[in-house]
């Protein structure tokens, strides 16, 4: 479990996060949603250690991550997989080499074992046989799936996903969402997804945190979100005509 306690983050005069506390449980798709500039990605980067919180603490299974130095964080980081908004695949490496990269650095497996694991991960994301392609030869959806394959190659306990649907068509977005949900349930991973895609919210949002002006404004599940009387959340969720129409049918 990941626990965030009273996290603040400022960049100069800009107070981006204003005392956020939350818990993210294993085996659940934890979604962080909110409008642009609400602090979603900043919160995610604080949780994974790419940003240091100005104030507050982050715990991984009870261990205080914020007070650890780089070396102390390495064992936890080996249990983290992350899919970036732009996939962040290593350009100079093939798909296979991207997936094998953490295995090369952190395991003593033989090349055959690493190759088996890479093939398994590729098969899991429906990209069997794409081993020798370079990231520049992949479509946006394929890059995301390779990113997921790389993220699960070390069998992570925690999976972080930043805007998994950005730049993807609706069909591919749903495929990516389903893949994330399947992996979360299958391996009982603590998954944290940052998104503002309402299809994802309604499709896989087991546990949702809504951020507004750097604060936690609402918390609940996708079943509860349609019936909330929280004005800011309603404005966000039902901003599109499609969602308004869907609400009227509810």
């Amino acid at each position, binding site marked *: 479990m990941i626990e965030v306690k009273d996290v603040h983050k400022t960049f100069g005069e800009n107070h981006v996060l204003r005392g956020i506390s939350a818990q993210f449980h294993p085996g659940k798709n934890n979604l962080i949603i909110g409008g642009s500039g609400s602090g979603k990605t900043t919160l995610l980067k604080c949780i994974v250690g790419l940003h240091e919180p100005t104030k507050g603490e982050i715990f991984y299974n009870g261990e205080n991550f914020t007070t650890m130095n780089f070396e102390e964080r390495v064992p936890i980081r080996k249990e983290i997989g992350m899919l970036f908004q*732009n996939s962040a695949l290593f350009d100079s490496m093939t798909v296979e080499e991207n997936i094998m990269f953490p295995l090369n650095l952190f395991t003593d497996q033989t090349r055959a074992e690493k190759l088996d694991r890479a093939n398994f991960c590729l098969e899991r994301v429906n990209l069997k046989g794409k081993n020798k392609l370079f990231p520049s030869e992949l479509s946006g959806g394929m890059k995301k799936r390779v990113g997921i394959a790389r993220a699960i190659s070390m069998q992570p306990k925690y999976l972080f996903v930043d805007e998994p649907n950005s730049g993807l068509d609706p069909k591919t977005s749903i495929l990516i969402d389903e893949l994330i949900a399947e992996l979360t349930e299958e391996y009982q991973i603590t998954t944290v997804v940052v998104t503002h895609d309402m299809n994802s919210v309604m499709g896989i949002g087991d546990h949702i945190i809504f951020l507004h002006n750097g604060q936690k404004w609402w918390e609940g599940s996708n079943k509860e979100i349609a019936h909330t009387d929280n004005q800011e959340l309603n404005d966000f969720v039902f901003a599109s005509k499609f969602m308004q129409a869907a609400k009227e049918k509810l």
Partner: protein
Amino acid sequence: MFHSFGRYLLLLKLSFKKPEKFSVYWAEVMREMVSVGIGSLGIICIISVFIGAVAVIQVAFQLSSPLVPKSIAGSIARDSTILEFSPTISALVLAGRVGSSIASQIGTMRVTEQIDALEIMGVNAPGYLISPKVIAGLLMFPMLNIVSILLGLLGGYVACAASNDIPTSQYIYGLRDAFNSITLQTSIVKSIVFGFIITSVCAYQGFYTSGGALEVGQSATKGVVYSCIAVLFADLVITRMLL
């Protein structure tokens, strides 16, 4: 300026921490050595031959007195090539070729979140990205310098053979006359220091890039400019100390 210098030193300290796995880093060092060394051989060969030839022609033009032995042109060209033309001019050219490539490569990795991906995996990103490039620079710049010296002297020979100003026998006599090995030692020291400066300064500029494609270009430009200035300053200091 002091803030940047402090950050540069801290980055270097991080870059030379114990690697996660030696074999992976070793493979990276080999790859960078090929990129820096073999990749730069063509441009070094071309500029060295021409600089050597021009140096001999200019010395011959300036020492046209019948009281000065013609072999002196070979001696002057040799010392100029060994001490200055090969290490310094090669370094300035390599700053443009190798330095800009390092800064833009690392800068692109920064803005496309590839460095964040490394850090999240628990990889020491400065160590993985910067140390192999610096080690490759330290090893390959002296080798390129030796190649440059040999080709510069060969260029001088070709210039003598192509004109009748200095007989080739006089030129070769001049090359061998009163050779002091301290010039070669100084040249090697210079190339090692220049290799370190160019790779580390450009890697620093790339590593702290923020923004997008425009900033990557700016980082590459800054890396080349700052490393060229640092090379010239180091040239002065080393020359003063060793000669």
